[in-house]
């Protein structure tokens, strides 16, 4: 296989190169020693061919070092690894460079977030992007900052949007050619979402794509009156990129206000959608809307993963997503044509899909004054956490929450910078949400196995050539599952809930696993012997 041959070459060549080139990002899958971009490669696979840790040896996996950030809040970072260093971001505008061998802190970046932030969901950060000798991250007050990878010194910082209006930034940027792409959060505050591209060298904005179509634009007719101005459509999880098609794929969040759909009659394009954008111009190539006129907060921000699928004897360039609305989807990534959708959890709001992928909606499932029970709940289904695709098993792995919630709505007057969701949801009495890790065959949508959890799943996925899937649970267990069966083969109690995906790389040729748990970064390696 082509990638394996390339792997051997790069393995021997990639000793502590402390810069990242555009070519390296394109070839990231072949370089198993490093972790250069959010999804491991541009396709978002989070699969590494490393196989020293496998279904047999994993029983000897043990901690190697632990770095304690001492920063509170959910750690959702995907660390980057290159040049003998691990680069991690923490909540509340903290970031670190750690010595890969020992975990020793080399530098620490911090900027106090301003007072009076309008936050939906805390101050998490999901990681760095790297190009040349620069690192890029967003700060929670909706800025993009470029750091010198060697020192942590700030090279430039740009305001993406006005945090006083409710914008925040939490996702890892994506490098495409010489540009830094970022998304935005804030749909709970009546904002209008977008995806931005900035010049990596100067920080100048190259283009902006609004995820909410304005009046007069194509798609603008899907918003009643001027409701598009508060239309939401956040873009808080990193997209993927197909260099051959020169298209960027990015998921968009819920329309605003979340629970009161009456004030925004129409499909509300391009919320709860997947958009394919020209990487150079920022122009829309196609869109696919999963949940037209959403009223259940079912963001479609989850990883859009690029896989060439064999469907009915044909190889199709597909993009797949485990959507928050309870369905797994595959869409043709060249043109946005619907391929298949399959439920992976209990669904009561739709009975299936039309031929074009539009859901067949069950009437009476909208939020109400007295509460409407709907499955899945507000968080899904699968929410945002990182997914993985294994080249060995050809399975797609993701976590889910299983169960239902009660959705409420009210009438709310919009005030700039104030919470604008028009009510909320609550648990169903005596029906707590549970969760699972799920393996789906992306070519058919069929669920191959489930690993059940006591509570909803929030950690991400890592698939490896050792036949393993690494993930974690809210109870603090970091777990290795058999990628073929879902059977737990190894676990380690980290002492903190897991809300981040693991990564893998090598140190002196030995496979390492790293993951954020609680407020710490923990790395693992096989213990010698036997």
């Amino acid at each position, binding site marked *: 296989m082509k990638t394996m041959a390339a792997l051997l070459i790069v393995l021997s060549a990639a000793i502590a190169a402390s810069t990242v080139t555009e070519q390296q990002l394109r070839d990231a899958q072949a370089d198993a020693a490093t972790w250069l971009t959010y999804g491991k490669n541009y396709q978002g696979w989070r699969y590494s061919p490393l196989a020293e840790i496998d279904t047999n040896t994993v029983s000897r996996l043990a901690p190697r070092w632990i770095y304690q950030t001492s920063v509170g809040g959910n750690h959702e970072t995907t660390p980057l690894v290159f040049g003998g260093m691990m680069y991690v971001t923490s909540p509340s505008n903290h970031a670190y460079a750690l010595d890969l061998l020992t975990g020793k802190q080399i530098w620490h970046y911090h900027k106090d977030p301003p007072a009076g932030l309008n936050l939906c969901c805390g101050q998490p950060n999901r990681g760095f992007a790297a190009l040349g000798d620069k690192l890029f991250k967003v700060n929670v007050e909706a800025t993009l900052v470029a750091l010198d990878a060697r020192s942590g010194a700030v090279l430039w910082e740009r305001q993406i949007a006005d945090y006083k209006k409710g914008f925040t930034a939490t996702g890892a940027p994506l490098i495409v050619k010489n540009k830094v792409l970022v998304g935005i959060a804030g749909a709970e505050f009546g904002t209008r979402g977008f995806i931005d591209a900035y010049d990596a060298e100067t920080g100048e904005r190259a283009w902006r794509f609004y995820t909410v179509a304005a009046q007069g634009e194509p798609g603008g007719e899907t918003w009643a009156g001027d409701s598009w101005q508060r239309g939401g459509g956040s873009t808080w999880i990193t997209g993927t990129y197909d260099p051959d098609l020169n298209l960027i794929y990015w998921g968009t969040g819920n329309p605003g206000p979340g629970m009161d759909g009456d004030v925004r009659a129409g499909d509300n394009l391009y919320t709860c959608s997947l958009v394919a954008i020209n990487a150079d111009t920022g122009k829309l190539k196609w869109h696919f809307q999963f949940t037209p006129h959403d009223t259940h907060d079912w963001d479609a921000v989850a990883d859009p993963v690029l896989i060439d699928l064999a469907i009915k004897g044909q190889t199709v360039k597909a993009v797949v997503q485990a959507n928050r609305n309870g369905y797994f989807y595959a869409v043709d990534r060249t043109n946005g044509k619907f391929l298949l959708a399959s439920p992976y959890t209990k669904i009561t709001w739709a009975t299936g899909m039309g031929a074009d992928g539009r859901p067949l909606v069950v009437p009476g499932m909208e939020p109400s004054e007295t509460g409407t029970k709907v499955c899945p709940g507000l968080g899904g289904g699968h929410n945002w956490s990182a997914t993985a695709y294994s080249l060995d098993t050809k399975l797609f792995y993701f976590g889910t929450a299983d169960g239902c919630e009660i959705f409420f709505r009210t009438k709310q007057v919009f005030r700039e910078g104030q919470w604008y969701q028009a009510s909320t949801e*609550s648990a169903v009495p005596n029906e707590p949400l549970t969760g699972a890790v799920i393996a789906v065959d992306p070519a058919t949508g069929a669920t191959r196995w489930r690993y059940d959890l006591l509570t909803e799943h929030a950690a991400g996925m890592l698939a490896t050539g050792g036949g393993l899937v690494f993930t974690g649970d809210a109870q603090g267990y970091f777990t290795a599952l058999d990628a073929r069966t879902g059977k737990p083969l190894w676990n380690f109690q980290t002492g903190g809930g897991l809300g981040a995906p693991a990564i893998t790389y090598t140190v002196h040729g030995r496979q390492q696993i790293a993951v954020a748990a609680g407020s710490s970064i923990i790395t693992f390696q096989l213990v010698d012997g036997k």
Partner: protein
Amino acid sequence: MVILLLVPAAAWAQTANNPPDAEAAAGGGAAFRPYCTPCHGVRGEGGRGPDLTRGVYSVGDTDADLFRTIANGVPGTEMPGFAADLRDEDIRRIVAFIRSIARHDVAGIPGDKVKGEKLFWDKGGCGACHVVSGRGGRMGPELTRIGPQRSLQYLLDAVLEPSKDMLPGFATITVIRRDGTKLVGVERGFDNFSAQLMDVAGNYYSFLKSDVQSATRGTRSLMPDQYGRLFTPAEIDDLLAYLVSLRGAETAR
């Protein structure tokens, strides 16, 4: 505090609180539903949380007391703070809603709490599993302050149908060891790889699931469900009168 609880709530309402605001109360009702009904009931009639329609509040009776309680919660109880979820104006509306549903007709409990106390410790044997002011067993929930924490209906249901609403952390753990012996107790911990429990004698056990035949968590309470037969209706009233009187340090005075 004791004095406060004995004074009719309406007398305080006239001096310490804002006049009733129907519009604010309606808005508060909308905010009340998702956040408060899981414990306080759809109409504020109480449940796992106190009955709010009685117009008597153990946290203090001014609007400021209610606001503070909703914003910050009550330490040492299941009442969380909602300051992170709700804006100040919404909390004020919820306070207005709570005022609007208060009936101020504090009905007496028909039973005799002195007789109820004797039934609790003797005939009922409730003290085998429940602590009141330092006395009793540790397997079930502590009842030292249970009076203001639950509605009367909830207490009655809890006595007659213990499995109707299982408190988190009080599930029944059943472990079958490799040798086939069975151990049953109340949950002290449970996850995908281990189980911890306490038996009726107060012994603590911890198992890795890989070391035993099975370890399962059930939603049937370990509390006997025979009190409806054991006690006469009059005795149930007495027991409830005793439970309602349990107010922590105040009881001890």
